[in-house]
């Protein structure tokens, strides 16, 4: 498979996006508590 090297970057991107989502949820909780 020629695009093997792209997968780690795609995985990292997914995790990063979810960290941002969780951070936003945490902020939501902080602001409205």
């Amino acid at each position, binding site marked *: 498979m020629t695009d093997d090297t792209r997968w780690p970057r*795609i995985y990292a991107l*997914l995790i990063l996006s*979810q960290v941002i989502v969780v951070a936003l949820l945490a902020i939501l909780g902080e602001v*409205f*508590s």
Partner: protein
Amino acid sequence: MTSIDWLVLIATTLFIVLWGIFRYRGQKTMQGYLKGEDLSWPTIGLSVMATQASAITFLSVPGQAYEDGMRFVQFYFGLPIAMVVVAAVFVPIYYKMKVYTAYEYLEGRFDLRVRLFTAFLFLVSRGLAAGITIYAPAILLSSILGWPLEATSIAIGAAVVLYTVVGGSKAVSQTQKQQMLIILAGLVAAGFVACGAFPEGVGVGDALSLAGALDRVNPVDASFALSDRYNLWSGIAGGFFLSLAYFGTDQSQVGRYLGGKSVRESRLGLLFNGALKIPMQAGILFLGVLVFVVYLFAEPPVFWNQPTLEAARRAEPAVIGALEARWSEATAARKTAAEIFVAAPDDAVREAARAELVTAQAHMDSVRAEAKAAIVEAVPGAEPKDSDYIFLDFALEHLPVGLLGLLVAVILAAAMSSIASELNALGTTTTIDFHRRLARRPPDDAKTVRISKVYTILWGIFAIGFATFASLLDNLIQAVNILGSLFYGTVLGIFLTAFFLSHVRGTAVLVAAVIAEATVVTMFFATDIGFLWFNLIGCAIVMGVSLVLSPRAAARPHE
């Protein structure tokens, strides 16, 4: 429900069932019928999501947010990491071995016993879960239509069995794509309706402040307690292991992405799920929070299960009447406090109103607890848990004509999509891992397809039967998850040992698995450890004991 609601409901549901049957009927090859082959990543992604999002998700989760806030979202925090591991490690191995079920791989890696043991654990846990998956929407339908629970269980189960048996795995995946789109549309619509039900002058910001004051906006809890079901740490660690076990080793999910065109499509489908899951669950919980705010300004019933409440009123009119009068007073006090809170001209008034709100809520909680106790006493066999009815009650009261039909269709779609995957996986596993593998003369392709249809029907009948006997456990969604957790850790341990501990052989892993399962079951009954942790514990015991039983040096002492 009005006739327009009925039209929407019947048209949507019938379309999906008939489309599944006629578009994908007549598949004769094992590859086409059991795997589905050639699916692209959006189909895989939506079908993976639809499999996990059962009707329970839409009945139970908003109710959970109403009572307990958004904490439950943390349960999904480990999921995206698990998606990466499944995509990177599990998918290429399954593709390389060209397996129909995840358990098939275990025979090549260990031996037949390990394959059968693991497949058996799957059949037990998933077989029971399939019953609960039918039960939840059956309650909804019986409550709306006034039909007996048995009738609605059979109606839902039979519809799913029909297209799952006729169209096989492909029909399951393709119908799930449509079901998931209907689900997402329905959720968004319900959110708008909830916001529209706020009184004049109350916006979403006010709603969040009110919900926050009453501890309903609490999605992330970073404190650590082993006995706590949902916090950041149990969500990331426990949720990771549960998701890894569910998506990596549960055939109802593995079957979804094995039907992909290529490793690439399967991977992207899984990552799609990883990206959307937390936002979607947060959205559903948020819907529950919005419903909570709607009822701050309107009197909620003291007990959400209306038929049971009616029965209690008839049995003990004086006791229940007195409690309902106190309840009305308490809700009126909370409503007044909420109105002052929203209209507060300055922080001092707002803080005073907040304190009033908290006091009124505590008063309501205590009256409700008393009412529940009185109802259980008045109606023998009544179930005190009523949070699964909250969202349903809201929908029946607030959704406009047409939308209620759509919402019921959403819940049915969600139920059918999960049941379809489960029955398909149960049928495939029974056929491939037991019947075909243990037959003296393995049946040919066409016969295997026929056998698999028979097993799918039998599992359907079993699930319907189980659904008619199930009663509301602690909470439906938690019951299914706990059930899964008792087996998942062990199954995951077997698979991770297979992938990462290459010198371990069959006997060692089998003994380790039995020890792990016994330990987990003992701990479940003897300790109060949060159930998410059992995935990690079971998995760690399997891998640890496997290692101890097969030391590299001892196996080859003189090398």
